[in-house]
């Protein structure tokens, strides 16, 4: 999964980048988009990772409640898979063991960041995202006054994208989690990044907010790699959850144009 995800740009992402060329106004931005598309082709043909930052291994496990796992601990199995994938695939190991002191590289890109969820059924669904540092580091969370509503969300997302500039490698895919608690909001924002580009939230009001956010972000003029242009984001995904009467939590988790994901169901 790690090797496949880091070498093959998902079709929905590549086609969204190709479509962006049709509406982009800046000649320099169009040249950048062409280089991004050429890169995807070279990566596939020459077995090179799309990006040298092959990321933190983020893994979301949805485990059916009827599943009984034998023969070892599932978390160990995921980490063993990451270890093997990053070594066999000539991927970069980018994990520092101690975050605030000795930042020694763990040498095998473990531990993965693993989220587990119990779901109905007897299957295990594994979603893998090699998450680059440039875009992950632009994540933001803030709680707003409940009465501030939709405007607070739009202002916060626009401000985040504006101030991030070229750091997260636009054109972006933007995940937004609204509601729940602090960690719930950020987890929803991350989870939404597994959605297909072009998909919409099933809830009509939330889908309308996604459209409004995408238009607002693309009006900022940041453009591909922040050189200026009309293509700042390819899509914006919003997930929501009921929240406390005192709160309006908003989390933003940004994905770069190298929006690498891979999912399997066992």
């Amino acid at each position: 999964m790690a090797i496949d995800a880091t070498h093959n740009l998902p079709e929905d992402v590549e086609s969204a980048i190709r479509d962006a060329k049709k509406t982009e106004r800046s000649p320099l931005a169009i040249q950048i988009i062409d280089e991004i598309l050429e890169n995807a082709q070279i990566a596939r043909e020459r077995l090179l990772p799309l990006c040298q930052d092959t990321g933190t291994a983020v893994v979301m496990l949805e485990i059916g409640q009827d599943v009984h796992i034998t023969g070892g601990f599932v978390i160990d199995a995921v980490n063993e898979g990451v270890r093997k994938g990053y070594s066999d695939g000539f991927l970069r190991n980018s994990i520092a063991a101690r975050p605030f002191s000795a930042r020694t590289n763990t040498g095998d890109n473990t531990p993965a960041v693993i989220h587990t969820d119990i779901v109905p059924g007897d299957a295990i669904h594994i979603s893998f995202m090699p998450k680059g540092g440039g875009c992950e580091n632009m994540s933001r969370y803030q709680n707003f006054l409940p009465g501030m509503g939709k405007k607070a969300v739009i202002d916060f997302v626009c401000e985040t994208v504006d101030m991030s500039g070229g750091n997260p490698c636009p054109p972006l895919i933007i995940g937004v989690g609204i509601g729940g608690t602090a960690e719930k909001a950020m987890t929803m924002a991350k989870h939404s990044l597994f959605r297909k580009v072009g998909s919409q939230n099933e809830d009509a009001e939330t889908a309308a907010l996604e459209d409004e956010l995408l238009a607002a972000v693309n009006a900022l003029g940041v453009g591909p790699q922040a050189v200026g242009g009309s293509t700042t984001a390819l899509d914006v995904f919003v997930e929501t959850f009921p929240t406390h009467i005192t709160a309006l939590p908003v989390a933003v988790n940004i994905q770069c144009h190298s929006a690498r994901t891979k999912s399997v169901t066992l």
Partner: protein
Amino acid sequence: MTTKHLTTPLTDEAISGLRIGDHVTFTGVIYTARDAAHKRLIELREKGEPLPLELAGQVIYYVGPTPPRPGMVIGSAGPTTSMRIDPYTPAMLDMGVKGVIGKGGRGPAVRESFRQHHAVYCIAVGGTGALLNRHIKKVEIVAFEDLGTEAIRRLEVEGFPAIVVNDAAGGDLLEEGKRQYRTSDRPIPAVQSLGG
């Protein structure tokens, strides 16, 4: 779009001819360094110890490549976020560095430093490490091998593509570009203040 072809080390004259938004290529030798290598170089300088490479006139590329597959000289090799190197850049320019390749914008003090030192900041397209690999012909580790992907490497490059973001005249492409293509009535934030 026309392309200006540069050879390294960069001359003052070549730098004078560059303007923001120019598409350029680099041919010759460039050196890789990220945060950790910058920190060590500047510590050596502060202690008055010799540097493992001559920086005068050189171009530094902010990259931590993937390991090469057998038969290749380097793996995927695109730029990393330049803002993380901001604290070290003025000192590097003091030591004679004339060109830098990374991605994203620089803080106001660093932009001013490029102007003062008659140096240039370029971006390569972030997330195109497979494409950029083709322009790197030879690789040799020259210092800090223990840093792994962050070691200083001497790269021989041919036609390595980049875009000028901060020129020696004090221009900033990211500011100009945003202003030109902005259709939003939101005020532009004074600084890009997100770290990382």
